[in-house]
């Protein structure tokens, strides 16, 4: 009988709480979004399953030296995963549209508005300045940068910020279009932009070097992120390291994504997640995303007051990072009003500028707060 009670006591059933069940439901919701709605499935499936898994009572997963804790420790705490993800993003990104039209870099800056709006919102809700910076950066729509900054400034809220960043990134097609329509007129949405000039191979090879020098000198704390982003891009543009490019774009990125999903999901344990703070973080993340979209669109309209060749303000919303989904949203909304208006390549300029802008914003928070 004693043996029987000991065995029973060691099963998870006895230790199961309502908190675990709520977290299972949250994990299932993430998996539903990924599988049924196709929202960032590469991330939301591992994150959702990890939430599910780490909320199995007594499972040896997140204690010191246990499997997922090791992924978390070496991947996120050591900030290796965000940098490797940036290597893959760099290898997948074509900076050509931005090189052809450098004005679009300014849209990438204006779309950081949401970062600072959410930052002040977080302080008003009682978060510390460091936590507020980590919450604000969600508005940059850049998961790896959010993780990189939060790990350095406020690791206690890493789970909520990372999950909020990736969840909202996947919801860009839902969040942005109403705001874009609200802030633009019918005439503005139909603006056709001139075809971009072709960008030479030399320019594309030189860009990662120029960008590395400028950004790493301006904000040294983000050198690991920017350095690997530009290295990945150099692999892509030189075309002499096919195997390295292939590894960065596919195998490495896929492996790192699995570790990222498991590690991020593992931070969402019932004991530390079912509190008011994560709910505030999710709310502020939405505010950040909305205001970043507003910043990009409104600044594009302001630029139009001074430019001879007008830009379509719909590309401003792509200044939030979320590459290339935000650019696709600009294209889609533009084509609803003029089916022959192709904005995708024009929107890629502010889109990749947004990645750099968010990294600089994070770098400045690190410079001033770490």
């Amino acid at each position, binding site marked *: 009988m004693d043996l029987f009670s000991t065995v029973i006591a060691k099963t998870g059933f006895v230790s199961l709480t309502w908190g675990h069940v709520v977290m299972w439901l949250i994990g299932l919701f993430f998996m539903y979004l990924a599988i049924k709605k196709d929202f960032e499935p590469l991330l939301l499936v591992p994150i959702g399953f990890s939430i599910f898994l780490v909320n199995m009572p007594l499972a040896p997963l997140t204690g010191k030296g246990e499997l997922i804790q090791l992924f978390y420790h070496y991947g996120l705490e050591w900030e290796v995963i965000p940098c490797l993800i940036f290597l893959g993003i760099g290898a997948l990104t074509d900076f050509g549209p931005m090189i052809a039209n450098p004005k679009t870099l300014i849209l990438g800056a204006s779309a950081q508005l949401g970062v600072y709006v959410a930052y002040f919102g977080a302080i008003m809700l009682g978060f510390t300045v460091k936590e507020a910076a980590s919450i604000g950066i969600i508005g940059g729509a850049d998961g790896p940068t959010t993780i990189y900054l939060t790990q350095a400034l406020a690791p206690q809220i890493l789970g909520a910020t990372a999950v909020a960043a990736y969840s909202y990134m996947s919801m860009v097609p839902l969040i942005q279009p109403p705001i874009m329509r609200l802030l633009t007129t019918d005439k503005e949405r139909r603006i056709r932009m001139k075809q971009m000039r072709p960008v030479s191979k030399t320019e594309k090879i030189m860009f990662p070097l120029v960008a590395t020098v400028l950004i790493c000198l301006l904000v040294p704390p983000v050198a690991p992120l920017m350095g690997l982003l530009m290295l990945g891009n150099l692999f892509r543009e030189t075309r002499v390291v096919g195997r390295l490019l292939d590894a960065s774009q596919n195998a490495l990125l896929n492996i790192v994504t699995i570790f990222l999903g498991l590690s991020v999901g593992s931070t969402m344990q019932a004991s530390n997640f079912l509190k008011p703070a994560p709910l505030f973080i999710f709310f502020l993340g939405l505010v950040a995303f909305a205001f970043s979209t507003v910043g990009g669109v409104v600044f594009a309209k302001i630029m139009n007051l001074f430019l001879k060749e007008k830009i379509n303000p719909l590309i401003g919303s792509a200044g939030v990072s979320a590459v290339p989904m935000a650019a696709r949203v600009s294209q889609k909304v533009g084509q609803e009003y003029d089916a022959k208006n192709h904005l995708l390549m024009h929107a890629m300029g502010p889109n990749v500028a947004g990645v750099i*802008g968010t990294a600089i914003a994070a770098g400045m928070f690190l410079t001033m707060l770490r």
Partner: protein
Amino acid sequence: MWMEAIRVAAVGFSVVFLGLIMLAVGVKIMSFFCNLGKNRAKKAAAKAN
């Protein structure tokens, strides 16, 4: 705390703009020199022919 928060935001947002403006100017200069080199190479090739 609010003073620190405002200072961090003001300096941070300004540097984001400054950084991306610097990058835009840097890209313009880079493109200028790349195109200059390309045109010179074209002219040299035309002369050789």
